[in-house]
């Protein structure tokens, strides 16, 4: 019998490193920047898809190449993301 793996209450996620900057949006980060997702504006179908691929509040991501579309590293995978979605993802940079 497998014990409950998912707790009933989600503990607040602790960022693993200290954030160095104030909140900004994903499309504003330079190439190579790493950040933690703070908030995701309303979920369009495509945003839901990105979330199903691992983009949740609290997830650490890296901008591999900025642009439109940009390339994101998410859970080790490289994902091309349209600028329209990147504008709706607010992040906090980490060092």
């Amino acid at each position: 019998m497998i014990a409950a793996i998912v707790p009933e209450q989600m503990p607040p996620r602790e960022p693993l490193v200290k954030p160095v900057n104030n909140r900004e949006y994903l499309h504003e980060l330079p190439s190579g920047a790493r950040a933690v997702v703070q908030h995701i504006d309303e979920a369009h179908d495509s945003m839901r898809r990105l979330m199903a691929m691992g983009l949740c509040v609290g997830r650490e991501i890296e901008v591999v190449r900025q642009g439109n579309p940009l390339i994101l590293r998410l859970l080790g995978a490289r994902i091309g993301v349209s600028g329209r979605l990147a504008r709706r993802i607010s992040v906090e940079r980490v060092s």
Partner: protein
Amino acid sequence: MHGVYRLVLAGNPNSGKTTLFNALTGLRAQTANYPGTTVERRVGHFDLPDKEAEIIDLPGFYDLKALSEEERVAVDVIAGRSPNISKPDAAIVVADVMNLSRSLFLVSQVIEMKLPVVVALNMMDIAEAEGVRVDTAKLASEIGCPVVPIVARTGRGIGELRAVLQDLKALPAPMSPAKGLCDACNDCPFRTRYAWTDSVTRCCLERGCGIANPWTEKIDKVLTHPVIGIFAFFGVMLGVFFLIFRIAHIPMDLIDALFSGLGAHIEQHMPPGDLRSLLVKGVIGGMGGMLVFLPQICILFFCLSLLEDTGYLARAAFVMDRLMRCVGLPGKAFVPLLSAHACAIPAIMSTRVIEDKRDRLVSILVLPLVSCSARIPVYSMLAALLFAHDAGKAALVFAGAYALGLITAVIAAWILKHTILKGETHPLVLELPSYKLPSLRTAFLTMMDRAWVFMYKAGTVILLISIGLWVLATYPKSAPPAEAIAMQELASTRTGDAARDLQDQAERLINHSALENSAAGRIGHWIEPAIRPLGFDWQIGIGIISSFAAREAVVSTLAVVYGVGEDAAEKNPESLYDSLRHAQRSDGSKVFTSATCVSLLVFYVLAMQCLATQVVTRRETNSLRWPIFQLIYMTVLAYTASLLVFQGLRALGVS
């Protein structure tokens, strides 16, 4: 012997799901549509020790609960709600060990559907190379179902997978998410599920000291560059087309020779008459004309499959996205747009990768505007008529025709997206998988599948229309003209070459007269007033009608219509072109003036003359409305453009 064991195969895109499917089923697979939808279904069979297994390859997706058509169809199939498909006995979920957390997201969703599940943990070879270690037993106990490590590309682990499938009866052990997880209760269902997958991944997977493969990053610096990437893409596609046109003509010539030989054989051994004519011209001509395009289609899909397998096509969609978006289409639409240069039919089928239904529809509607290979014989003929001895200018004619087709398709897409099919394109979310060596086996199987679908779908339609047109061109019959009879009588008094020439001449006259008096000829006369402003006469009218079977049929039809004889058209195109150049109307004026040729060229670039394409459009859009719309708008477009071109050239003083 038990009954058939029904399986479904699920997994993320790029997880190696299709490779596993091919490894299990090989050639024992077919593609079809789920009834009532445009979602593609691949079903195959393989053997287990004491029963036969049937496996359905579900489309790749990330989230079973997503709202798009593919996910809903998948859910219906797994739950047993899909019409004509019984509830599966078990599911295989392919998990990519290099993307374990994300793979487990889908695994947990499938487990919640309450059927026995086995997880095939793929890409173990890459894991080993990069020093990633997985505790498979622990993973299995955390998930609650068997986990089999495999390498789908090499077949490693597939034996064990079969063994597990053989005995798989139990439902997965209860998992908290299955019982306690309420999607609506938490503010983010994704986050909740990922908390589980992340924790399982943390405890079962260990990243060692191995070095990740740097090649993907290096290559992508170039290939995803906004400018270089686009040039690279065009370079790659040019390379593919170059390959196609270089290699394809060998089997094409073979097929052509085969069917001509078959036709000649029948002509020798059957008594002359309608049945022989039907067999040779209608059936063999129709089939040969369709099969001759098979090599191009095969090579194109073989190359595309290789490119996709390497992971390059994702980069292509990525760099083309920005450009295509200006027109209102997603980047993924570009590959079908290019494939349509070989044949619109498989291109329309490959628009399935476009997720948004509206974008897919727009792509399907404009694809036939792109110049397909069937138009090449027509372009060749018109280029030769326009610029008899100037190869450079003739090449320009070709380039112009291709450019016109592509540009019109792009503009048409823009117009459609801004008028009747308004709506924003879905923003791009696309994984760029690591580059890997492509599998020749997968490419071969994909090629066979596409070739078969082309032959079956397009083939039957083309054959029927060829026969239909043969009927139109043969009946009603008429008496041979007096002149021809006189010639034949004269021929019987001569011998050798002179006799043969007279006989040929007489035959040409008879054929010409028969065609003129047949139903096709009458229709040609009937539409003449409508097409005269385009610079065409009733004879060209018959040619256009015959193109509805196959565009290139116009060349041989014109040969008959202008009394040149079909044999000449095949054996010596130059003599056909020469005769057409000199063809005159009854009032002595030249038929194929420059203005007429250009007008005819524009007509053939833009007109919808391939009923087989329409049949496929109907299938892919699931309605009659869109193929009819396609026919109407393209016909109006072709007519108007031809009219403007002809009258415009006339006004400018070009005869």
